[in-house]
């Protein structure tokens, strides 16, 4: 609880700093705030602690998601420095809103009560609607914000409907210690709530907003959508389902399987012909969400490490990808695939880290993505769905095709000589750190799995 208070205070402070002359302090203060929040979260919260009369909890599993959420925010903050170039006051708003979104995410992943979950979702979503439209001079950004708002509100309404049904079926908003009065309504409520949360993590068939919003938003905001929102969404989904799964029937298995397969198939098919790399990664995000969902088959607390590992791999890779797209876009003015032509000969560093990130997304060996895919597929194979494993692997090959279509461009030399360009050392060192982590987790997965309790 203390960590949320710290984050709130930091957020407000950052907003005020943006008004005055302290623009240079915004990012250090924000980073320090996140660090302090992280420290206080893990230091002052004995495992099993409950806050607000049991509406939120601190257990090992939410703690893993919260840690991931905060460290991911910490990795994004340095890149926000680029927003200093824009009008007065904008950086402060930007950083403050991100911090509020993270608080919403923390509420989502550690909820024990559906009211808290709803508050968290709204807090995160409203912040994201604003961020999506933050490039207000550009019409695509406005469009993205509006689309996100309308679709997101619709999803929230569906979610609330599910919460209502849940109340009818159990007579409480609590996730634990309840009695099911009407099993049918209870089943429907789980499905409806699942649909509402699936929208947030862009699982097919609830993914239609993702490509447009990813493409229209400023690229750094897209990076936040692909990382913070996904972590929060999957954390919430996990926290919600792990208490409910023992009350569900066989339909749960088929629901998860169906949504996972449809995400993988639809995402792959749609990503195939994309010219815009941001759209391509949006669809690839749908595929990855499908893979993460495989970890929800036969859900148990012991499986959580698999989901967390996959999220870590995905977050690391997509962070690098979107940041790299951001730099190329601001250099060349577009995220069309042809703008990446010859990237290796212009900026070898960026090309190499982007290649590692794309390899990890595609499941190339010795990257975190490979291990992550391996874990979930092993899990599925162990449950006796070999056909599903083969299907997932074939889809993984198809996804290799479009990742390598992008990588191919990096190593294609342009006819006319192009000038080389470099990144700041701060950006370089953060990107290097993330890439090194990706490779390290691919080589030695136990570095992470022992922390998250495999």
């Amino acid at each position, binding site marked *: 609880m203390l960590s949320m208070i710290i984050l709130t205070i930091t957020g407000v402070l950052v907003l005020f700093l943006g008004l005055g002359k302290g623009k240079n302090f915004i990012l250090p203060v924000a980073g320090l705030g996140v660090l302090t929040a992280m420290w206080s979260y893990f230091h002052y919260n004995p495992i099993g602690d409950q806050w607000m009369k049991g509406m939120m909890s601190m257990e090992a599993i939410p703690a893993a998601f919260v840690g991931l959420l905060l460290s991911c925010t910490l990795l994004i903050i340095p890149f926000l420095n680029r927003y200093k170039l824009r009008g007065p006051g904008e950086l402060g708003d930007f950083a403050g809103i991100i911090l509020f979104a993270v608080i919403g995410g923390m509420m989502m992943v550690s909820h024990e009560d559906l009211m808290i979950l709803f508050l968290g979702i709204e807090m995160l979503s409203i912040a994201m609607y604003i961020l999506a439209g933050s490039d207000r001079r550009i019409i695509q950004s406005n469009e993205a914000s509006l689309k996100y708002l309308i679709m997101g509100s619709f999803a929230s309404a569906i979610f609330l409907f599910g919460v209502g049904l849940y109340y009818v079926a159990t007579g409480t908003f609590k996730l634990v210690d309840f009695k099911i009065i009407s099993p049918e309504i209870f089943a429907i409520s789980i499905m409806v709530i699942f649909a509402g949360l699936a929208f947030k993590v862009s699982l097919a068939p609830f993914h239609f907003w993702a490509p447009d919003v990813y493409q229209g938003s400023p690229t750094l905001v897209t990076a936040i959508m692909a990382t913070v929102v996904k972590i929060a969404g999957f954390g919430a989904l996990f926290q919600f389902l792990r208490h409910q799964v023992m009350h569900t029937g066989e339909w749960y298995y088929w629901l998860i399987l169906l949504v996972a397969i449809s995400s993988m198939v639809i995402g792959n098919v749609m990503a195939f012909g994309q010219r815009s790399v941001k759209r391509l990664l949006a669809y690839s995000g749908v595929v990855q969400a499908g893979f993460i969902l495989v970890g929800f088959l036969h859900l148990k607390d012991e499986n959580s490490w698999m989901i967390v590992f996959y999220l870590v791999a995905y977050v690391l890779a997509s962070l690098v990808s979107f940041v790299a797209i951001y730099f190329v876009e601001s250099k060349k003015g577009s995220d069309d695939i042809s703008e990446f032509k010859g990237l290796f000969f212009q900026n070898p560093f960026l090309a190499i880290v982007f290649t590692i990130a794309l390899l990890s997304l595609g499941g190339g060996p010795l990257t975190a993505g490979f291990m992550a895919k391996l874990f979930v597929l092993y899990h599925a194979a162990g449950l006796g769905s*070999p056909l599903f*494993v083969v299907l997932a692997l074939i889809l993984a*090959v198809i996804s*290799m095709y479009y990742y390598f279509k992008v990588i191919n461009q990096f190593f294609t030399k342009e006819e006319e000589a192009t000038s080389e360009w470099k990144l700041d050392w701060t950006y370089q060192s953060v990107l290097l750190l993330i890439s090194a982590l990706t490779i390290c987790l691919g080589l030695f997965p136990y570095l992470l799995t022992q922390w998250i309790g495999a």
Partner: protein
Amino acid sequence: MMSPILILIIFCIFTGLVQLLAGRKWASYIGLASSVIGLLYFLFLLTDLDLQAGLMYPLEFKWIPGLEVSFSLGMDSQNLLLLLLVFLIMPVGQIASITGSEQKSTAYYCLMSLGQAALIGFFSAQNPFTFYLFFELALIPFYLMVLMYGGEYRRRAVFKFFMYTVFGSFLMLAGIIYYYTLLPDGGSNVQWATMNSMPLGIENQYWIFAALLIAFAIKSPLFPFHTWQAELYTQGDRPAIIIIAAVLSKMGLFGFIRFYPLCADAIQNWSYFLIPICIAGILYGAIVAWRQSIMTKILAYSSLSHIGMIAAAIFTGTVVGIQGALFQMFTHGILAASLFYVVDVIIRRTGENNIYGSAGMAKIHPRLAVYFFIIVLASVGLPLTNGFIGEFYMLWGLTEKSIWYGAFAGLSIILGAIYMLRFYQKSMFGDLQTEHEPKWHKLELTEDYVLLVSVILILSFGFFPATWMDLTQQAANHLLTK
């Protein structure tokens, strides 16, 4: 104590990093030096070779804790020759990339060293999972190398190669995961050496072997999965192609050997259509090679033919067949690298990838002509060259299985002689056009050395095959005991 194999792998990766930092001028020389040091160190390891000891220089540690998967390397009688092949071929690739006219970026040389590390890991892997890991990993450096340099249409060619192979290797992963889930202890103790003792039901063998068959047939390649080959060999960057043709094409075949104990019954039950398909591939490759006039395409189709023969010999499941296959994998590696190197030497002078482009070269470069002739004779399978022993054993094995297999596969020797001698005749003899003469500069010292060494290897393995045949016999016996 550190395992020498791991030291070699780390050494190659380290070289790659040093090359990245060293800059354009030195990277290539560092790569060459490191590959030669690697070869010398490996030869030093061979000096206290103990054939009876079983697994040498083993290394094993628990790798992925949740899944009971371990990482395991080692040297045994089956992979020794192929590891030797890797260490022998890498310097050739390095030299070819130095003497190439175009200046390449540092990353290219770094990738070559990383590729060597992956290949060493692949051939010394001791369990299916490590095997898969390096199988996939070895692909990426060579993919990027060809992507960066080579002919005009290289991107299409290498992308096709990449997608084919990745498709195969993911199927292989599915097969391996399935195999591991079948094992009682989750596969924590799987080793090639102990695979015999854990037989699978025939139904499971069929599924696993089907997945592996597609993966390895694409990688080798076997007819009819060869369509990526000729295009890649023609368009690719030649130093990389030397290594791909010599070593990467053995990865699939080596996979058949490694997984033989696991799928022995499936292979035997299916051999009645697998071997005929392989023989069809042998004859198809030979006939197509006969009618080609592009040099690299001749070599590509001749590779297809030879590799089909090796695969057929493995599928016979006889001791002599597998012995011949193991030895021929090594031999074909040496010969393919030498032939591609000769083609590289010729193309660098004539600028044409056509057998008629270098007509009359024997008059200006008699030494090249002599080296080339010996290499051609070896690849035709003349006695007293290294090409003979492998072919002989493989045909013996095929004939043991059925006289018809032996007869049809034997045709490939005649066809091989036809297309290789045609290749030699058209490219070396014929009328010399006088305006060519000044462009065809002298044989450089490095080129001379590389060809000399390969000729020495060809003759010495041809004259003294006994030690190596003992080794392969031990390997084959070990593979076939239940």
